[in-house]
């Protein structure tokens, strides 16, 4: 079997089960909230207008934004809970609306008949109104199911594992098999759950107890099978670890370390590299990949992850909110001190390479425009279009560069980082905000323009340890060999292996590891 396919399949039990647990928990609680709320609201026009309006407003927030917003709302917490809460909110509208519409659609005659023959309010609701509204309510539930299973793929950037991991990681590393894997399984799961609910409805309508039990057993099995892998691997690894503990030196052997990564190739490779070092020291490593840029920092601040790699310039501009860059080594020192004093975060050290933002152009296009440096672009700025990742145009680096070199007339175009390099190669944009360690700069023969005014801040790659992790000396020891060990050449080559040659990040990390050990 193809190595890529084998690796994707190996991830499947974990990601699928996480996806099932997350979406079923959100749906279950969504039903528990919105059906009773719908019943209450159906009898009170004022309440139904208010609740429906609130739910509709929630619905108009794009799924990704809703998920991301939960992180600050929960005080920086990442992982299952913010994702669960956002998906729960997302499931409310269809169920709530259909419960209200279904109940209000019942003929007043029927309701009066129920009252007239001596049913209490509750009996009328349970024996007459809810059964009659059931098809409408179930239709809402099915809509919610499809939405929630789909939106759960967006849980990846807030640190909750889901089938979205396939999609986000695949998109960043141009691993289309991975993207397709995520889409197929998410769609399949949505269809399966949707059909399960449909059959439950049929069973309720036709009072087919056998069918209801069958579907119930299926759903229970699905949940059990989803919950079990966690339990089983946990036990298995505990057994493993006790063996390691017996033999390995004291330190972090047998302990769990959570390694975080943002959502692009270089981060996956470095996370895999740290994972190798930590596992070599006997630790059990959990990965939280595809974190949004600021979510990763929040996560290390709150200790949800123990370690990840960031850049001095990023922390300087977006966390410390310092507008003007300063000299590279001073920035590192000031930033380290600030992180330690403000948050107790330990800057373990610099990996060695710099990955700055740079402005890259096709070499022939640069020649045509006679442009070597950003200075040369000002007079023709209104004719140029620049592509950048979703983050960059909102960052201080871009505004500072734009203002320093008078590039305000340039048109900007946002796209995923994966597509920027091919976009500039294929002349869809004139220049891009490239990462200087990206393997595709060399591969596509792009020219990086000079920054004579030194507006762009230095971006030294640094290892950050959470306050808790900083108290575990074994952890820093295990990662110490990486300090100063990776230069730009090595990083660019590792990135290239993944982005161009279709290697997995783990394979590229192994290659780096071999280079370091030499």
């Amino acid at each position, binding site marked *: 079997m193809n190595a890529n396919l084998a690796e994707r399949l190996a991830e499947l039990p974990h990601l699928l089960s996480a996806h099932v647990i997350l979406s079923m928990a959100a749906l279950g609680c969504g039903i528990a909230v919105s059906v009773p709320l719908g019943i209450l609201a159906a009898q009170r026009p004022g309440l139904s207008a208010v609740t429906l309006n609130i739910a509709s407003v929630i619905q108009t927030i794009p799924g990704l934004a809703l998920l991301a917003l939960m992180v600050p709302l929960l005080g920086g917490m990442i992982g299952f809970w913010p994702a669960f809460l956002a998906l729960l909110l997302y499931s409310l509208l269809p169920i709530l609306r259909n419960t209200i519409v279904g109940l209000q659609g019942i003929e007043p005659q*029927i309701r*009066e*008949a129920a*009252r007239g*023959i*001596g049913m209490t309010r509750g009996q009328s609701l349970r*024996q007459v109104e809810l059964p*009659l509204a059931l098809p409408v309510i179930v239709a809402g539930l099915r809509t919610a199911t499809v939405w929630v299973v789909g939106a759960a793929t967006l849980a990846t950037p807030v640190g909750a594992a889901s089938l979205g991991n396939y999609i986000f990681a695949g998109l960043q590393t141009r691993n289309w098999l991975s993207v397709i894997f995520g889409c197929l399984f998410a769609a399949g799961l949505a269809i399966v759950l949707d059909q399960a609910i449909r059959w439950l409805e049929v069973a309720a309508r036709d009072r087919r107890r056998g069918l209801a039990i069958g579907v119930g057993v299926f759903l229970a099995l699905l949940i059990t099978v989803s919950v079990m892998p966690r339990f089983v691997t946990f036990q298995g690894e505990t057994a493993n670890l006790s063996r390691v503990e017996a033999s390995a030196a004291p330190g972090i052997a047998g302990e769990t370390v959570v390694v975080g990564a943002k959502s692009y190739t270089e981060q996956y490779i470095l996370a895999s590299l740290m994972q190798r070092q930590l596992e070599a020291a006997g630790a059990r490593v959990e990965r939280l990949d595809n974190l949004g840029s600021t979510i990763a920092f929040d996560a290390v601040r709150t200790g949800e992850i123990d370690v990840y790699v960031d850049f001095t310039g990023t922390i300087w501009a977006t966390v410390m909110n310092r507008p003007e860059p300063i000299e590279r080594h001073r920035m590192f020192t000031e930033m380290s001190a600030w992180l330690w004093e403000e948050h107790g975060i330990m800057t373990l050290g610099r990996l060695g390479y710099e990955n700055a933002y740079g402005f890259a152009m096709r070499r022939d296009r640069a020649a045509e425009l006679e442009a070597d440096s950003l200075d040369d672009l000002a007079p023709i700025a209104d004719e140029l279009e620049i592509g950048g990742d979703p983050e960059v145009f909102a960052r201080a680096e871009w505004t500072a560069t734009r203002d320093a070199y008078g590039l305000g007339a340039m048109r900007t175009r946002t796209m995923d980082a994966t597509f920027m390099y091919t976009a500039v190669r294929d002349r869809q944009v004139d220049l891009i905000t490239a990462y200087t360690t990206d393997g595709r700069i060399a591969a596509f023969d792009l020219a990086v323009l000079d920054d004579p005014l030194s507006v762009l801040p230095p971006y030294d790659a640094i290892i950050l340890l959470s306050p808790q992790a900083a108290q575990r000396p074994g952890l820093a020891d295990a990662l110490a060999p990486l300090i100063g060990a990776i230069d730009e050449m090595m990083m660019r080559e590792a990135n290239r292996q993944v982005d161009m040659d279709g290697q997995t990040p783990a394979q590229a990390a192994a290659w780096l590891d071999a280079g370091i050990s030499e």
Partner: protein
Amino acid sequence: MIDPAAPVLDIRSVGKTYPGGVEAVREVSLTLERGQLLALTGESGCGKTTLLKLINRLEDASGGLILYEGEDVASLDPVQLRRRIGWVMQGDGLFPHLTVLENVAIIPRLLDWNPERTRSRVADLLDMVGLPSAEYAERYPVELSGGQRQRVGFARALAGEPDLILMDEPFSALDPITRDGLQQEFRALQADLGFSAVMVTHDMAEALIMADQIAVMQDGAILQQGTPVELLQSPASDYVSGLLETPRRQMRAIRELGA
């Protein structure tokens, strides 16, 4: 405990003003003797349905007193009261998601009868209304004709062995032939089981044929109460004679054809 000679229903100076100020029923006094059928008639909007709802407390009276089997209905729990009084509405008011059997068994179940008693009562009633269980019990209301649905409606109202049943235009949605048959069957059923009934109807001919007592209402008040013969012989006002004129004219027309 119940005095067989006392009226089943004794309504004294009852009034109802809806929130919003409509005075739908004013100073109504009526009595209904055991086993009799009282027809409430009058033009649209005169308060017939409202008066009916006051009896089983689907609406609460604004004033006056209603005694059911000698008890003031205002002092009874409305849910319990409704289970002791049959309720038949226009259309049929059957529950579309329940079978014929389940529709009829609803009140016995609400009354917590044991399953054996419920089963035999339902079977007896379905036989009595001409819908043998074997053929009809498992059908849903959509699988019945209008007349059959109305029969199920009667069976449901009678299932809890009530002393009184209230009917709001029970025959109005049926074609004349079905209506005629059902009217006769209903009277036979009543003679058999001995319950009392209040029936709202628009149709004076129906009232004359079926009722023991007729009460004519106008603007929320009773204009006249009496037997069909009393009404025909001495209508209390021009309004009442006007209402009687329609069936009279039809009768004359038919007799002339026959002659």
